[in-house]
């Protein structure tokens, strides 16, 4: 199959299916008329943002997008919580924000099973739920929650794999650094990468795979990559599941004197952007659009308030990034000009 065409395709349409197999709607299908905006403003609604983890660029961009759009809608954001990846903490957070009787909760479940009961309780309390990326077990769109907005995580996996394969000229040994936890988003990427490499690059062989558990993901990734590079000297490329682990891989490459290594990853963070801009070992990455995702989620929450029929599953396509399109990709993702440091490194 033709990688280049495939890569182009990834950027245009979404590959993942919804949690219940729904086919994805584009974000462009979601919008609010001025009239609707006015009615929503009139409601002076309260919204809570319940994150699984708030300690990275992705979450922050999401939150910014949400706050910006909610601002336009006159919705008051009363709480932003961070469960630090702990389902029990997230359940507590939901309990606590419910005490403030919010009209809207936008959330990403840290674990679809463990948190389900509490989300159902929230739904039963009449709260309009909009989910990011994943939906708790046993909840149905339109009934229990308004909608789920997802990045095309499968697509991200595909894109980063295609970029890796291309940069390697379609052959050689690679290692994969994945997330050693049953977390929907990262698992989709991992599956996609393995499948894509197999489908498109028969001459690329995965010779090493290492899961990392955190909390020090960069450090774990560095240990993993370091070990791969000493025990498999043939390795030409490494894939990292998101940007923080990728930073660890970059460090490992330099300490092991492998400036020729080829690294790709998911998510566009400033460090990896710099590594790419300065012709470092990062040769490409596949970005999500967290800011737009947040905006879309906010609007769908508006749908909920209005009782307007909402698409069950909205997804934003992956955004393949190389040094060539870095600057514009950055502004697409963060709605801000590329940072001075990245500019400086180009």
């Amino acid at each position, binding site marked *: 199959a033709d990688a280049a065409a495939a890569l182009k395709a990834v950027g245009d349409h979404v590959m993942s299916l919804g949690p219940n197999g729904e086919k994805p709607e584009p974000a462009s299908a979601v919008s609010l008329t001025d009239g609707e905006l006015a009615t929503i403003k009139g409601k002076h609604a309260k919204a809570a943002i319940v994150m699984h983890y*708030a*300690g990275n660029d992705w979450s922050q961009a999401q939150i910014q997008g949400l706050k910006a759009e909610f601002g336009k809608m006159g919705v008051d*954001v*009363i*709480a*932003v*919580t*961070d469960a630090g*990846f*702990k*389902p*029990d903490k997230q*359940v*507590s*957070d939901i*309990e*606590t*924000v419910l*005490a*403030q*009787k919010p009209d809207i909760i936008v959330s990403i479940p840290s*674990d*679809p*099973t*463990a*948190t*389900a*009961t509490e989300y159902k309780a929230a739904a039963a309390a009449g709260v309009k739920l909009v989910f990011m990326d994943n939906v708790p*077990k046993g909840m149905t769109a339109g009934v229990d929650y308004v909608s789920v907005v997802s990045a095309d995580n499968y697509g991200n996996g595909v894109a980063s794999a295609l970029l890796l394969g291309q940069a390697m000229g379609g052959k050689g040994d690679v290692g994969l650094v994945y997330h*050693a*936890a*049953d977390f929907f988003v990262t698992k989709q990427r991992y599956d996609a990468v393995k499948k894509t490499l197999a489908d498109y690059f028969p001459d690329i062989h995965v010779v090493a795979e290492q899961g990392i*558990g955190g909390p020090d993901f960069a450090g774990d990734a560095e240990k993993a990559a370091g070990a791969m590079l000493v025990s498999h000297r043939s390795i030409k490329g490494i894939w990292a599941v998101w940007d923080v682990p990728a930073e660890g891989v970059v460090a490992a490459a330099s300490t092991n004197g492998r400036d020729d290594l080829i690294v790709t990853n998911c998510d566009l963070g400033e460090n990896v952007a710099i590594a790419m801009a300065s012709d470092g070992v990062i040769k490409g990455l596949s970005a999500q659009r967290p800011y737009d995702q947040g905006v879309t989620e906010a609007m769908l929450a508006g749908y909920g308030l209005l009782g307007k029929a909402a698409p069950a599953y909205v997804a934003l396509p992956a955004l393949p990034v190389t040094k060539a399109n870095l600057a514009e990709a950055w502004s697409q993702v963060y709605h801000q000009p590329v940072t001075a440091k990245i500019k400086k490194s180009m």
Partner: protein
Amino acid sequence: MTDAAALSARKAPSPLSNWREFIIYIGFVVIFAIFAATLGSRGFLDPNNLLNIVRQTAIIAVVSVAMTFVLGTAEIDLSVGAVAGLASVATAMGMDHLGIAGGILCGLGTGVAVGAVNGWLTTGIGIPSFLTTLAMMGIARGVAMWISATAAIPILDKPYAAVFGGGNLGPVPSLLLWMVAVGAVGHVVLRRTTFGRRVLATGGNETSARYSGVDTAAIKFKVLMLSSVAAALAGMLYAGRLHSGRFQFGEGDELSVIAAAVLGGTSLFGGAGTVVGSIMGALLIGLINNGLVLMGLEFSQQLIARGAIIIVAVAISQTRKR
């Protein structure tokens, strides 16, 4: 450094020196009052919210009761968090194959097994409990991840969930009942039984305790067993509350549990501690977390505020005593 400072510095960790007895109560009351005044409008005083505080701290409180005994003997158990996670998985898997009773047995069995190993390595081989339980923490977490393939294992059994942390008895959350029950038993055992007395004697001065006829090794074995079983119970409560078993449950709880006990006046150097204090310590932490979320602070600000409040709370009560 003034000598007064030196004196207080010397007094501070002194077990049972009164301020430790009161810190927690003074701090709790002060902070509760402040939150009630400032967050009333945000539903802080809403009975359901107050019950939330209990729900969110009951599990920590349960383990901190057992930890009071462990610290009382001047040992430590860092494996409680991981054991809770493992027990939650064991319970869920056990239930899949052996039904509800089987599941409960698997959960408790996990606690007993880990406790026996911790106890034997510490008292039998003589490895410092800090190392034993630190290693056990990794082992338990690893086993939990392995047997569950890091996935959450759903528990569909409603009665189990209702009894173990999920449900309510009338208006009262079952978690509250568990906390009160464990707390009451723990309090009586520590204060009024020969076992409790031997625990504090062992921690207060092991040689003296031995000279007085206390089998200190047996005591230490028992308290380590106790804390593992309590941790297992905690895991089962997590499983009930979250309708599933997952290796992550309880992650990092060891620190919260020890913090609760120390806040409650238990000395890390052994020989002193009260169960009621530990429970109050857990509740204080839960109270603060709840209030800070209600305030709508950013997570980063919550971290800062929590640290500051704890310091101030302790400092107030401390200076009160001077």
